[in-house]
């Protein structure tokens, strides 16, 4: 029996469209995201991230009818204190060796460590931390989500193109706010913008919507922004969603707001319809009765990347598919107007960055005129010569 299975496996390798069905199981390991958002529009749904993976699996299965491959998304949801390793083990037991990871950096690194002996492959769909692609990069983690530096660069290119080069930067008091602020500082330097002054908004608690404290926060915005040196754009670094949403129409000076509010860089927006994206948005809305957010889209794309690699390489072996995705033949269409490929030095997916005001996609970066010798997409984020990543 075993030799028969082995023979069949060989056949599959030899003939991409062989008759035996190949099953590809993909775990969806996802954290519960905070419901403490400034706008009720941003409250995550119960199937946040998972819905994207399910749609990706459905798309892959339509293709799989012709290639004798089936794709399955297996959900594993983590609550606040849950052990990520135990959840990962349960996915392994169910046969999932591809893991769509919607995890904090700490949990992602723990999962990567655990996945190593299993030969499993992780696809990060939400953590934007640059360190996961730099000093803390891992050979078994592919990053579908963009980095903070890619997001900041995408925004900076547009602001510089608009000649809004003088920025007043307001950052929140949480560690990840500082990470975003640092990315914005780097982008300003890289593209020739100037941060005229930096201010901090101290989170004293109680300012969020659920605490009925919104009025308090809103009233502090003029004070926070008055008496600033002359500037063109007000830039918010507020990943923690404490104050940024109150800056538009609340600040002292009439200036455009960008960053965590106003004009926001993102990998996906429910208003994005260019390059056939409308078709994906429609499919998603019809299936899940809600709009597709950035995490849903990254999960869909991660599932499509696994599907595309499995179709082309005719395999469900994580290492084979990883090598295929890293190779020159791999590219994926993601309704962004260009083909997306992986940066082989950090396993980061190259991608355009959408700039959204929450209603419209205002522009898409890279902006015209920002050139690069390899790919214009590499004008966004950390490029090969600067990388600190040593994959292992």
């Amino acid at each position: 029996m075993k030799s028969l299975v082995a023979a069949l496996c060989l056949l599959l390798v030899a003939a991409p469209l062989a008759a035996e069905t190949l099953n590809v199981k993909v775990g969806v390991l996802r954290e519960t995201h905070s419901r403490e958002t400034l706008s009720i529009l941003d409250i995550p749904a119960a199937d946040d991230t998972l819905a994207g993976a399910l749609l990706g699996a459905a798309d892959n299965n339509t293709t799989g009818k012709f290639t004798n491959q089936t794709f399955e998304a297996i959900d594993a949801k983590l609550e606040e204190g849950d052990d990520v390793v135990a959840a990962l083990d349960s996915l392994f037991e169910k046969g999932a060796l591809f893991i769509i990871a919607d995890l904090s950096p700490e949990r992602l690194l723990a999962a990567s460590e655990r996945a190593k002996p299993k030969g499993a492959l992780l696809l990060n769909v939400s953590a934007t931390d640059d360190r996961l692609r730099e000093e803390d990069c891992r050979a078994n983690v592919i990053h579908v989500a963009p980095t903070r530096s890619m997001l900041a660069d995408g925004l900076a290119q547009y602001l510089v193109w608009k000649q809004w080069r003088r920025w007043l930067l307001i950052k929140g008091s949480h560690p990840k706010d500082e990470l975003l602020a640092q990315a914005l500082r780097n982008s300003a330097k890289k593209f020739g913008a100037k941060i005229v002054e930096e201010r901090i908004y101290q989170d004293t608690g109680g300012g969020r919507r659920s605490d009925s404290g919104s009025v308090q926060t809103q009233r502090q915005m003029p004070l926070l922004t008055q008496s600033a040196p002359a500037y063109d754009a007000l830039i918010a670094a507020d990943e923690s969603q404490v104050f940024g949403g109150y800056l538009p129409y609340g600040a002292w000076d009439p200036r455009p707001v960008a960053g965590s509010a106003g004009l926001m860089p993102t990998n996906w927006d429910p208003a994005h319809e260019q390059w056939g994206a409308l078709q994906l948005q429609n499919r998603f809305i019809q299936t899940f009765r809600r709009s597709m957010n950035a995490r849903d889209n990254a999960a869909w794309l991660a599932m499509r990347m696994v599907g595309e690699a499995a179709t082309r390489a005719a395999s469900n072996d994580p290492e084979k598919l990883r090598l295929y995705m890293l190779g020159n033949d791999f590219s994926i269409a993601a309704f962004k107007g260009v083909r997306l490929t992986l940066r082989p030095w950090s396993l980061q997916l190259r991608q355009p960055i959408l700039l959204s005001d929450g209603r419209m996609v205002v522009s898409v970066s890279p902006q015209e005129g920002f050139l690069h010798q390899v790919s214009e997409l590499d004008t966004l984020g950390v490029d090969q010569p600067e990388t600190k990543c040593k994959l292992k």
Partner: protein
Amino acid sequence: MQIEVTNAPSLPRWRGRGSRFGLSFLFAKRRSLASPLPRSGGGIGRGLWVAALLATLIAPAHAYKAYVSNEKGNSITVIDTEKLEATATVKVGRRPRGIELNKDGSELYICAGDDDAIQVLDTKTLKVVGKLPSGPDPELLALSPSGDVIYVSNENDNLVTLIDVKKKEMIGDIPVGVEPEGMAVSPDGKLLVNTSETTNMAHLIDTQSKEIVANILVDGRPRFAEFKKDGSELWVSSEVGGTVAIIDPVKRELKQKISFDIPAMSKEAIQPIGISITKDGKRAFVALGPANRVAVIDAETKRIEKYLLVGQRVWHLAFTPDEKYLLTANGVSNDISVIDVASLKVVKSIPVGAFPWGVVVAPQ
């Protein structure tokens, strides 16, 4: 975009020189592709229309009518190919993309995607006179060589729908890959090709049995399919992959891929879409989308001869029946570029409606 072949010499649309095979060709159609919208900031310059009218002056052109679907203008623009100017604009359904003429050119079928309908435009009166049944979001269509059956790609439900033209009835559907788009019928009518944008395959379908007989993987986001008129080759453009796949329709296998290289232009900007191949099978034209160029290819050696600068975001192409001109629908610059096929020069730009997508030509 395949060229239709028929051996009925009296067909009204053919007014050009006789073909060396004793066949008449109706016209070269282009099928259209979903048009991505422009990113802000615009593209490369629109090109110089300097070479201008020289070619028109040299030889008298036959007067044909070209029809252009304006995706965001919700209209069809009619162009006189002798005067090279727009003569009428007709309001039609929402989001018109794929368009196709019937055999005698009396009716234009229009995929109005947002109305989930295929509208029928009377080309004499320029009035919408009816509808063909269609699945949701029809995008592209192809007419069988006999003119009896229309094959439609329905982008939203992964189906190719078959419609009886005379009875105006749906007579079947065929499940295909995700986001079916490009459609072409082989010159003998036996093989139907559909490309699926997200599955990345060309599905070869036997038109008799209505069964898929082969699935051929091509590069990312295949959008358009075109047969050589002798049926020897099938060309499929991959927008995101940036290549054109040449398929042997008899052996049902991929023969080779053509890639493009334009100096000082990023690979990502080169996105092949519309394809037109001359009746003698010697030369092919491929629209390259946001590269704002049409590639001229020696269709025998597959060598790229030239890149012609046209309007912005060029989608679909159509020859005039005498192959004197090739018309290109330029989605962002809202115009049609006219290429003089003999001299390989862009001779004119004709303003049309908003976001022109598809173009077909019929004799007047």
